[in-house]
């Protein structure tokens, strides 16, 4: 049963930030509510003030230019991202990931910002964004700050967002040439939450084909979305072979710290990470090699 709260539907970001500052001790922000309403319905949280930002059209946009890269307003829905021609063309892995996220209904109403702020380590967008070296902008009445998406997650359902702050934009740098990015999650039921998920982005050197840079990010590999940095170390600067990818999988699996729950044991999750890092790495590599 949802508690009685005081409801606000600000029309501008400025208005929203003012409200967040005013009620900084007891408020919750609702955007699409696809995660929030579940916990509120169970009475697990009972905010005195609910700030509904769903109507802030200011934060609903997808912009791209070669210099600044991709900028996505925090309130852009998953479905909009999934179907955006710009994203499909130049950031295809994002559209692919959204296509497998939950259900069409959830994607129609839930926002990318809401998903990130929920801080679920099993979430799909975070590892993909991390693998693309994405950043985000957080606003408050006092100004703005930026950070890497990979630094945004602190612990289970805990992010770096402070009281009075609002996530406003996600930025994905233009993808360099000779880069391939892919994401796969494992689940028993398709489109379900990831038992584990792996995102890999590989940039190859133009001649010689060795790995100039790469990022490996994991969903549900730990209490927070994480990069498998040791596995990256193994591959960075080298010519990536099948053998190396297999080894990278083993290292990533070892540096991960997945939980055991009713869906899978930690050991099984580690097995899956081994396999997925290898497979997704292969896929990213093959995409990087495409002209």
């Amino acid at each position: 049963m949802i508690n009685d709260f005081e409801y606000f539907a600000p029309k501008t970001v400025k208005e929203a930030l003012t409200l967040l500052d005013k009620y900084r001790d007891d408020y919750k922000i609702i955007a699409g509510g696809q995660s929030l309403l579940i916990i509120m319905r169970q009475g697990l949280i009972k905010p005195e003030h609910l700030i509904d930002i769903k109507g802030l059209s200011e934060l609903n946009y997808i912009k791209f230019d070669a210099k600044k890269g991709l900028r996505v307003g925090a309130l852009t829905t998953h479905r909009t991202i999934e179907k955006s021609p710009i994203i499909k063309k130049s950031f295809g892995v994002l559209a692919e990931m959204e296509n497998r996220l939950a259900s069409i209904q959830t994607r129609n109403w839930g926002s990318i910002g809401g998903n990130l702020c929920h801080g679920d380590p099993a979430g799909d967008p975070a590892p993909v964004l991390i693998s693309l070296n994405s950043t985000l902008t957080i606003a408050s009445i006092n100004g703005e700050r930026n950070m890497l998406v990979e630094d945004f997650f602190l612990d289970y359902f805990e992010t770096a967002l402070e009281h009075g702050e609002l996530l406003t934009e996600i930025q994905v740098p233009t993808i360099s040439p000779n880069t391939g990015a892919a994401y796969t999650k494992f689940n028993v039921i398709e489109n379900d939450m990831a038992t584990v998920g792996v995102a890999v982005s590989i940039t190859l050197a133009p001649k010689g084909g060795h790995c100039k840079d790469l990022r490996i990010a994991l969903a549900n590999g730990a209490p927070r979305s994480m990069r498998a940095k040791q596995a990256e170390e193994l591959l960075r600067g080298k010519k990536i072979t099948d053998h190396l990818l297999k080894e990278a999988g083993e290292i990533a699996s070892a540096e991960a710290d997945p939980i055991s729950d009713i869906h899978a044991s930690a050991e099984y999750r580690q097995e899956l990470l081994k396999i997925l890092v290898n497979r997704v790495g292969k896929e990213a590599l093959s995409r990087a090699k495409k002209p």
Partner: protein
Amino acid sequence: MKKELRLTVNGQPYELYVKPNSLLVEVLRNDLGLTGTKRGCESSSCGICTVILNGMAVKSCSMLALQADGAEVVTVEGLANGGKLHPLQKAFLDYGAYQCGFCTAGMLTSAKAFLDETPKPTEEQMREAIDGNICRCTGYNSIIRAMRAVVNGEYEETR
């Protein structure tokens, strides 16, 4: 304190006063008496409560009613055109695409919203369209057959 909610449902404009913690499904069912849309879970997982809002399939249990302010909502009751059933409804009847019927409203709205957006889908896309809706009776395949029949134009002349 109740707040004003203005929305159009099945072509009919409404002006209501609702508590902010009301969900859209509650307003549709309790305030407007449109009980065709059902509820099946507390975890936003079953899709039974799906309605069409501004052309998009959404879960009406996972949205505050006030978030539908200014929106155009279509529920199962709004699919038929006067006395004429929507092609999907006719197809569901012919293909036995329902059994107990409790998930049917959500299936129809999901299918309609999807086909309005993607009139010539692949088999895989049709399955995706209703992947957010659980059915315990049919095994889904009859629903896909009904959708395919509509896509193939079997019900063209009735509209």
